[in-house]
């Protein structure tokens, strides 16, 4: 183009800065995150530091998961976003809307239809396939942070696979409570090497990590760490011979909506007398099950 032509084009009076690129992130950012994802896959459970970028949602609200999603997503993907298992949770809706706006990809609530699922605090009840990637938002990636505040020290512990302090912590927990008192964020050993924080998923979901067909990518935006569990990988919760890992016990409670007895349930306080009902935390699964029941 000649300069004259360029200068005469009035559209060039507009601000250049008002345009966003495909998937929001600039290409350099995507390249860095992509490189780090590959390293995370190659060293299962190891936390790869990365230069987490500031996203238009606040740190702690899923910026890590969002950066992963935006770095891997293409126009043909179908995205599902959930928070606490629900598709319609406000933060999930907000993230889904944003990704749709900057990529144009379609959104779904059906777990089986999605090629990428971004989630906070849950793994869907429906088993995933080799064609799917689960992206988990992580608030605190360092599994050893509870027992050791210094990053320098936890790095050393991981480097030397020196996990005695973690085992001691669990042991003392049992002495104190006669049970392991950890609720969610239950530590797991990945590929017989690294102890890893599976993000604040309930213990109920831990077994879904073991020898899964799909890839799991975890990302903490604020703490700037990416880690992964490849498909078909050994993932074991920490436990003792005489104190086994146990999942949440709903004592035979049934989902009031679909009647499921084999899902993770939300406990709903109905009135001041403390009357409780239960419903599936995974709302998409619940909707499918309810439909099946009707038919």
């Amino acid at each position, binding site marked *: 183009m000649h300069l004259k032509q360029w200068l005469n084009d009035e559209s060039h009076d507009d601000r250049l800065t008002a345009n966003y690129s495909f*998937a929001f992130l600039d290409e350099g950012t995507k*390249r860095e995150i992509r490189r780090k994802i*590959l390293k995370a*896959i*190659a060293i299962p459970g*190891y936390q790869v530091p990365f230069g987490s970028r500031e996203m238009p949602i606040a740190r702690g609200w899923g910026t890590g998961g969002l950066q992963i999603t935006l770095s*891997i997503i*293409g126009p043909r993907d179908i995205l599902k976003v959930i928070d606490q298992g629900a598709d319609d949770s406000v933060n999930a809706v907000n993230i889904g809307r944003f990704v749709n706006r900057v990529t144009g990809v379609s959104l779904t609530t059906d777990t089986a239809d999605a090629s990428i699922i971004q989630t906070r605090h849950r793994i869907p009840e429906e088993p995933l396939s080799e064609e799917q990637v689960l992206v988990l938002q992580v608030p605190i990636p360092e599994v050893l942070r509870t027992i050791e505040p210094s990053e320098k020290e936890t790095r050393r512990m991981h480097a*030397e696979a020196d996990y005695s302090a973690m085992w001691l912590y669990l042991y003392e927990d049992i002495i104190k409570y006669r049970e392991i008192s950890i609720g969610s964020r239950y530590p797991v050993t990945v590929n017989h090497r690294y102890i890893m924080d599976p993000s604040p998923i309930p213990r109920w979901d831990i077994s879904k990590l073991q020898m899964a067909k799909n890839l799991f990518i975890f990302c903490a935006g604020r703490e700037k760490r990416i880690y992964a569990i490849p498909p078909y990988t050994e993932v074991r919760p920490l436990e003792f011979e005489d104190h086994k890992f146990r999942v949440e016990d709903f004592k035979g409670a049934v989902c009031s909506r679909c009647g499921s007895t084999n899902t993770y349930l939300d406990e709903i306080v109905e009135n001041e007398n403390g009357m409780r009902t239960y419903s599936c935390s995974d709302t998409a699964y619940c909707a499918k099950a309810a439909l099946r029941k009707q038919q």
Partner: protein
Amino acid sequence: MKPMDHEIQTQQVFRTIMRAMGYPGTIHRLLNHPSHKTRTSSLQLVAETLFDQDVTFCVIGDQGMRELEDILHKLTNCPVTEPSLADFLVMTSPASGGKLLTAKTGIPEYPDHGATVLFSVESLADGSASDFLVRLTGPGILGEKYIQIQGLDREELCHLRELNSGYPLGIDSIFIDQQGCIMCIPRTAKIQLR
């Protein structure tokens, strides 16, 4: 919003590499474009997807290695360095003359500093229990995986095994063949050679 073709192309290439890294030993076509078949163009696609000014690379090969270095540098703005410092090694000849052994394998605190090696080979194919060059087991592999690799000396695979013997230290490999297919062997994969 209409995405730029180039952005979409590198996204697709990345997803293929990610898939290959997640499922070691599986062979994937880089792009479904017939035009991306030559050796250099497949290498270029991978380089464009992963290289930039924030990392370094180095080509190990015989003839044409300087030219290739030049092409990749111009394409990606990625600085060239020596094999022992490079984040990415590009191997274009069947033998490295031991240079591969100098690759970075990371340090215990940061094993991710280990290099990624792009092996440019003749061809990749699935093998079988009776007919294979490499047998892989480990994360990402359900049971075991048999591979045939043409155009790479057996010794280099021995080097690879040696480099990855101190897990989690090690290097991660991406094999790219002349038909535009790729296959990955991350450091977690146990390599058995025939």
